[in-house]
């Protein structure tokens, strides 16, 4: 599944650098990834460290909640707009 590969790439990128553009961002700007795919991968990356620290069902809910928040939370949607140039906001 593409998302799993992206998660692995993102984890590798994060561990190698904190200042260079992330691998996910590179894929987005090259057009290898669309905005939805980029956002899905960002959420997967945020949730990954919680594996084993929260019940699986809670993590699944958390993933969906974060994905929704990317569209409705003012700060998250502003960061998405700044990073992607688009306006994902529904609010």
């Amino acid at each position, binding site marked *: 599944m593409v998302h799993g590969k992206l998660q692995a790439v993102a984890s590798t990128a994060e561990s190698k650098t904190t200042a260079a553009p992330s691998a996910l961002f590179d894929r987005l700007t090259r057009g290898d990834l669309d905005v939805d795919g980029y956002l899905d991968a960002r959420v997967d990356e945020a949730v990954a460290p919680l594996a084993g620290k929260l019940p699986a069902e809670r993590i699944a809910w958390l993933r969906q909640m974060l994905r929704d928040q990317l569209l409705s939370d003012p700060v998250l949607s502003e960061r998405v707009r700044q990073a992607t140039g688009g306006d994902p906001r529904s*609010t």
Partner: protein
Amino acid sequence: MSGIIDAPDVLERFHAELALVEIIAAQIARSVGRAIEFDDLVGTGREGLLDAARRFDPTRGVPFRAYANFRVRGAILDGLRQLSALPRRAYERIAALEATALVSEGEAERAFARGAATEPSAADRALAEHLSAIALAAAVEMATEDRGEASDEDDNPEDSLARAELIHFVRGALDELSNVEAEVVSRHYFDGERLEDIARDLDMSKSWASRVQTRAVNRLAKRLRSLA
């Protein structure tokens, strides 16, 4: 609503963002996943919007729409918390949504500051860090929430162990925070104190306490990522 006669600019702000209330109410109802009276959420949300319109300070640099979003969200979640006889799972989700709003609100001035992180790759890094912080804060709130009625959905022993591990990580990582950051995190996430009460006790504004809390959670999330 009270008999206060609001200034025209207050009413203008209120009416301009009225549609926001139903959008946020619908999103929260969907996330909490219970049969909650939608009109009650909207009514509470509108009170939050009016409060936002009255309190808004444009000098902080946060657009009214964003500020109102947090106030409406907070009002609706506060209203939900007052409901009795919700299952524990619903309270967990409410707590997670509250944590999300709290962490984001503490980041709002930075996110909307002129020239800050507007370069796309910098915004990408900021987005990644902010998402991690929110995920951790929401997870900790879910792990420590103990309100609500027990049900068959509650944890098995493995799930309880997983929660305990998360709580253990956060407690252990408090040593890496400043004294005030550790106190704010400990009192809010483990003792269940409201941020405004902690702020008053520490003789700081709520907005300052919000920024301290967000900074602390960012640091904890960074620590968690380094262990993954």
